[in-house]
Structure formats: structure tokens, C-alpha cells
């Protein structure tokens, strides 16, 4: 029998709430392949692959067993996807579909935002509790926070093996880190701790260390492409790789408020305030040799940050490449040539630095 689960469109829905109410999170992910059902309703060039796939699955009955489809307010495309899904139900376009829930977590800096977010996390808790019939106490929630924090600590041990001395390729480690969102935290901690022990015994990897930034990627295709040039992707700005676990959630009298604060501050997506994202990106530059900026065709947001980032990288003499390709497809030959040139330049700088 399939484990009770909810489908989530972006990793900014508290896994602690999901687990405490008896569910498992299943995340929408992008992939290559046709989405004919979704294409009839979703305008081209606007919705990323993961949302097109989510809608395709919704329209073809593949989400019928989910208890809820939770769409967080992490991007305008997600919000519009929520409105579309609700319309499919209203119009009987999608018949076997779980109730669709908007998780309206805001991320701006207004003084009224934190209280609003606490109320939204509480509303999510209430809704999922009603779906499962399991109403967690504050102690139950704190127990889930503790379990998730243990998983976070394990993930951080793995992250430490990527940088400053990389012992694992980005394409290999990204799925391990991303599994934080979907796995039982105890099993995740065990799996990742085992992996960290094995990886720690490996020799360091040669090649320039690359930070992948821009629009977050949820798969490792782009990592493989970058690493095929002899570089190592050691970090990503996004919720899937090194940013998946993040810092611990504080454990205090009000676990709901703690979760609201954590996910507002740490969720990385299109509505993460630009200042926070800039600080996050720049804090990673000390320990990388090159930067790849991914701005896929559906990008409407991260491209705005590019000129400022480019100026910083130029000032610090860090080679970089800006890729406009779909991260699920292989880069073009021109992209490969640009990656090759970036890796060469970074290698020369590496050699110069190390004599």
C-alpha cells in the first residue's frame, strides 16, 4: 500500500508539518519529455518544467492517490499553477485530483509578514491534520523538528565534503542532498552519514571548483555537463543541493512560529529578497574558482541579478559563464565552448594561485 503523501510544487513547505501530520512529501520535479495535456492550458515560456509536469500528472490522474497538492507561494508561476489547478477541478477538466492547497508563505521584509506567515503555517497544519486525522501536539511537532534537524546536521557533514576541498562530484551528491525533502529524516540521516563516511575516505578531486547559481536546478544534468569539462560543482544557490538542509530550526515554545521563521528566511526561490540572495551568493565566492549562472528560457527573475553579479565576479577575477539553455537538456555546442573557456581560465588562475 502506498504511503500517505502530499505532492508539493517547490521545496518551501515545512517537511516537519508534513511528517507530523502523517504524510510524506513528494516533490514535483522537472524532466524532459512531452506534456501534451499541460501544453493545452499552460502558456509556453512561462511555467518551468516541474510545473508543466505537475499539471500533466494532475490532468492524467497520476496524482489521484495524493492526500493534497500543496502549492507554495514561492513564485508567481507556482501561484498561477494553483489557480489553474483549481480551475481544472471547477471545470471538471481534472476529475481525480486531491484537494489543492495554497501555502501562502510570504518572504518580503514587511513587519506584518512574520505574523501572517505563522498563521499560514498554522492553517497548513490544520488542513493536513484534517486530511490525515492526526492532530500533532506541540511536543509532537518539536519531535519532528528535532528529527529534521538531525537530518540537516547529516546533510551539512556531506556539504562539508564538497568545499573547500571537494571529494565528491556535484552530479553525484546533488540527489543525496535533495533527498532531504522526501525521505524519512531518520533514514535520511543514516543514509547521508554512511555516504559521508565513504566520501571522506576518497582523495580530493582535481579541477576548478564551480558555484552554480541563477535559477535553481532540481536535477543533475547541468552538473554533469559542467563536470564533463573537468570542473567540480561544489555548491549551488537553491533548495536542492547544498542549500537543501540549511540551518537548524530553533526548538522552543512555539514550533509553528519557528517553522514560519525558518522557511521564510531560508526558502530559496523566485521571491527570495534580492539582498538575501546576493549575500548568500557572495558569501560562497571565497571558496570557488568559477561560477555558472543558469538563466533558462522561462527565467523572469534571476536575470535581473546578473549584471551586479557579473560586476562582482569581474572585480574578483572569477571566471563565469551565463547559460540560457533548459537545464534538463544538454547544453549547445556554444555553451560547451563557453564552459570549456571558463574552466581553462579558472584552471590557469588556480595554477597561478598555487604556484
Amino acid at each position, binding site marked *: 500500500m502506498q504511503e500517505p503523501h502530499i505532492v508539493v510544487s517547490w521545496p518551501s513547505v515545512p517537511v516537519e508539518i508534513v511528517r507530523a501530520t502523517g504524510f510524506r512529501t513528494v516533490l514535483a520535479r522537472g524532466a524532459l519529455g512531452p506534456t501534451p495535456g499541460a501544453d*493545452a*492550458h*499552460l*502558456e509556453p*515560456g*512561462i511555467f518551468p518544467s516541474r510545473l508543466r509536469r505537475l499539471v500533466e500528472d494532475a490532468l492524467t490522474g497520476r496524482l489521484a492517490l495524493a492526500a493534497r497538492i500543496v502549492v507554495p*507561494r514561492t*513564485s*508567481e*508561476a507556482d*501561484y*498561477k499553477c*494553483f*489557480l*489553474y489547478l*483549481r*480551475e481544472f477541478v*471547477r471545470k471538471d477538466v481534472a476529475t481525480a485530483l486531491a484537494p489543492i*492547497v*495554497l501555502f*501562502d508563505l*510570504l518572504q*518580503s*521584509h*514587511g*513587519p*506584518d*509578514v512574520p505574523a*501572517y506567515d505563522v*498563521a499560514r503555517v498554522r492553517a497548513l497544519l490544520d488542513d493536513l491534520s484534517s486530511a490525515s486525522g492526526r492532530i500533532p501536539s506541540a511536543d509532537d511537532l518539536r519531535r519532528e523538528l528535532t528529527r529534521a534537524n538531525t537530518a540537516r546536521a547529516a546533510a551539512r557533514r556531506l556539504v562539508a565534503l564538497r568545499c573547500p576541498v571537494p571529494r565528491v562530484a556535484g552530479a553525484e551528491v546533488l540527489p543525496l542532498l535533495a533527498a532531504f525533502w522526501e525521505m524519512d529524516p531518520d533514514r535520511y540521516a543514516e543514509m547521508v552519514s554512511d555516504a559521508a563516511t565513504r566520501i571522506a575516505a576518497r582523495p580530493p578531486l582535481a579541477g576548478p571548483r564551480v558555484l552554480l547559481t541563477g535559477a535553481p536546478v532540481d536535477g543533475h544534468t547541468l552538473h554533469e555537463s559542467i563536470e564533463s569539462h573537468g570542473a567540480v560543482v561544489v555548491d549551488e544557490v537553491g533548495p536542492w543541493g547544498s542549500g537543501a538542509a540549511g540551518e537548524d530550526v530553533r526548538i522552543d515554545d512555539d514550533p509553528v512560529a519557528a517553522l514560519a521563521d525558518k522557511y521564510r528566511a531560508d526558502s530559496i526561490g*523566485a*521571491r527570495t*529578497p*534580492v*539582498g538575501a540572495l546576493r549575500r548568500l551568493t557572495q558569501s560562497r565566492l571565497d571558496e570557488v574558482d568559477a561560477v555558472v549562472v543558469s*538563466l533558462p*528560457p*522561462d*527565467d*523572469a*527573475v534571476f*536575470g*535581473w*541579478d*546578473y*549584471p551586479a553579479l*557579473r560586476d562582482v565576479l569581474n572585480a574578483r577575477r572569477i571566471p563565469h559563464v*551565463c547559460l*540560457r539553455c533548459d537545464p534538463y537538456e544538454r547544453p549547445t555546442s556554444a555553451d560547451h565552448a563557453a564552459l570549456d573557456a571558463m574552466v581553462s581560465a579558472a584552471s590557469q588562475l588556480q595554477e597561478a594561485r598555487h604556484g
Partner: protein
Amino acid sequence: MADSQLEATVAASAFQKQWFADLRRRVFDDRQPYALLQADVPFELFDLVDIPAVSNQWWAAIVAAKRQAPKFLDAMDADGLHGDLCRYCSLGYASTRYPDAGDSPWGGLPTPRLLCARLTCDCIHRVFSLWAATFGAELFEIDHPGAGDLPPRWWELGRHNWRELVEPHRLAFVVATLERLVERLEAISGRAFDRRALRQRLELVNQQEEVFDAVRRLIAAAPECPVRMTEQITNVMATQWVRGSEWALAHARAFHDEVKRRVDDGVAACPGERARLMWIGAGLWHDTAFYTAFEASHRAVFVWSMYLAFGPDGYIRYGLEDPMAALASRTASFNEYLHNPPWAAAWIVHQAREHRIDGALVLRPRSMKPGATGRLFIERALEDAGIPVLPIDADVVDARGWDADGARASVRAFLDTRVF
């Protein structure tokens, strides 16, 4: 035939130009503050503390109409801002960031004291942060909580039952944010905000929109459209930015009276009208001649755009005991009404029927990504209602990729094959 413009249209254009000249004088000579706002911000709050406000979208439309947009947008491209980023909401920023690239109309935007935007599309936070940094000015953001409850036929609820349109938690959040905005405006202006004046202002806004409602009914019912869509837009836009002011109400009435005279006298924008068209989406500001290009050849007239129609349905709020809540209820779901299911399609089909529309042209914006959502739902709803649809690929301010001849040819073919 209505070859000449309405007197109201000439007056509206002159008012806007003079208003902007006064603004520049006020800012440069008198060192008074002004604000730069997204179009969906409640302008009334600024006016009530005597801080004039310029609409970003209005300014972008002026820059595009003066054919300066390509120069500023080329400068954006050269700076590494890729071509899929929204150009409509960022053209004003480009005119500030790259001042030497083109000639900003009427001397350009002076430095505002404050910028203010609702965080609807994800790019707005980015664009306004960059713009505020370029000016060295303060930015106030109004976050945009998403709507979870979606009552149908919003245009019937909005006037009297507006509390039912917006969930209580969203309404409370927007009210709280607007209260913070008022605190900032009081600090900037040095003037106390008068809540009785807000209620009076909203009552005047209601009156103004009631006048536009009457104009809309005149246009819908007249045997032939009495006033071109472009003139409707000019008159509505000039008043909307200063809505509820003495001038705005007087101008709306003058516009109404002139349209009514035309209806009474049987004057048509295009005598012998054969097809009534609607334009769905933001205006094609760099090529407004497009909207009259099918009158001579096909007697096809653009009758409807959202600009006149949305005022009465989107702005009127009766029951103003709590004027800030009424204002917040209008602000909270502004964009969803215009673009997204279930609201936009149902409203547009309703409007199409009221206006006896024969064909609809639906903008497919090239770069306004979330702003371009909902289009397929609207197109399908119109077709299901028996109204043929022609999608038009265009950017509303960026003329660089616009095939004016090709677009006109496709409309002519659409009229020949689907409308007639």
C-alpha cells in the same frame, strides 16, 4: 464620421503634459517630494498627503509612444539583462539607468522621494529594487498574498459585498500594510493623514467610476461605437492617476457628455460599422495606430479594452465605514481579476456579450511572463461563447520585434475568415 478627436481627449492629453511639467517644477524648483508607483498601488493615499504620484506603466507607455523604448531596451540588452525579462515594467527603470541611451519624454523623470510597488509578478521586487538604488530613493513594497478562495462573478460582488471577495486574513494583511504606507507618507510629507478625507475621496472615486460605467453602457448600447478605443483609454488613464480629484470627476463628466452627444446625434467612430472588436491585454503603446487600421478596409472597430471597463467593476466600493478596508479589498486581487481563472475569462465573456463583440484580439505578451498567464483560459472561454479569437504576439512597449504589416495582415485575414 468621427474623424476629429473628442474635445475631452485633447483636454486629457494636455492635462497630462501640463501635470508632468508642474511635477518637474515642483520637484526641481520647490524641492517637493513625489512618488513613483506601480499602476495597481492605491494612488489616493499619496494624493491625500499631497505627494503627487507617477505611474510606472503610464510612463512606460509615454516612452514607447515617443518611440524611445528601443534605445533604452538596447541599453538593457547591452548590460546583460536577457531578452526574456519583462520590458513593460522595466522600461521606466531603463530610462533612468541608461539616461544617455535615448531621449526621455518631457525632460525625464526627476528623482522621486519614494518608490512603491505591489509584489505581484516576481520581477517587481527586482526591478523596483534596482530602480530605487539607481535613484538613491526609498522603496516601499506591498506584498501580495495569494487568493485561496475564488468566488465567481467578482464584478457583481465587488461593489456592495467586497468583504466576500477577499479572505479575512488577506484583507487584514493588506490593510496593515497600507497603514504602514500611510505612516511613511505622513513622515515624508509632514502632513497628517485624514481618514475622513479618505472616505470622501473614495466616494468621489465611486462617482467617477459611475460616470465611466455610464459611458461604458453608452458604448455597449449604441448602434455603432461612438468613440474609438484609443480615445477611451486616453480619457480614462488621465483621470485614473488622479482619481477622485475635482479635475478627474469633472473631466469624466465632460467625457461622458461628449460621448452621449455623439450617441444622440448618431455619430459613429466608423460609420457603417460591420465588426466590433475587443482588445484583451495591455495596450500596444508603440503602435496605437493598429487599433484604427481596420476601419477603412473592413469597417471593423475596436470597441472594448479593459481600461474603461475595469474602472466601474474593479474600483467601485459601496459601504465605506472602514475606508481603508474598502481600499484594501480593491487592491488585494487586482491582477487576478484581469488575468487569471476563474475571474478574468468569465468577466471578459460577460463584457463581450454586453458589447456585442464580433471578434477578440488577445495579446500574447512576449516578455511579461506571469502577466501573460490566463490567456489560454480566456481564449477558450471566448471561443466557447461563440466569439472568434485571434492571438497577437507582441510586446506592449518593445517595438523591436513587432511586425506591424504582418500583424495587420493576420487581422485582415481573421476578419475575412472568422468574423464575417
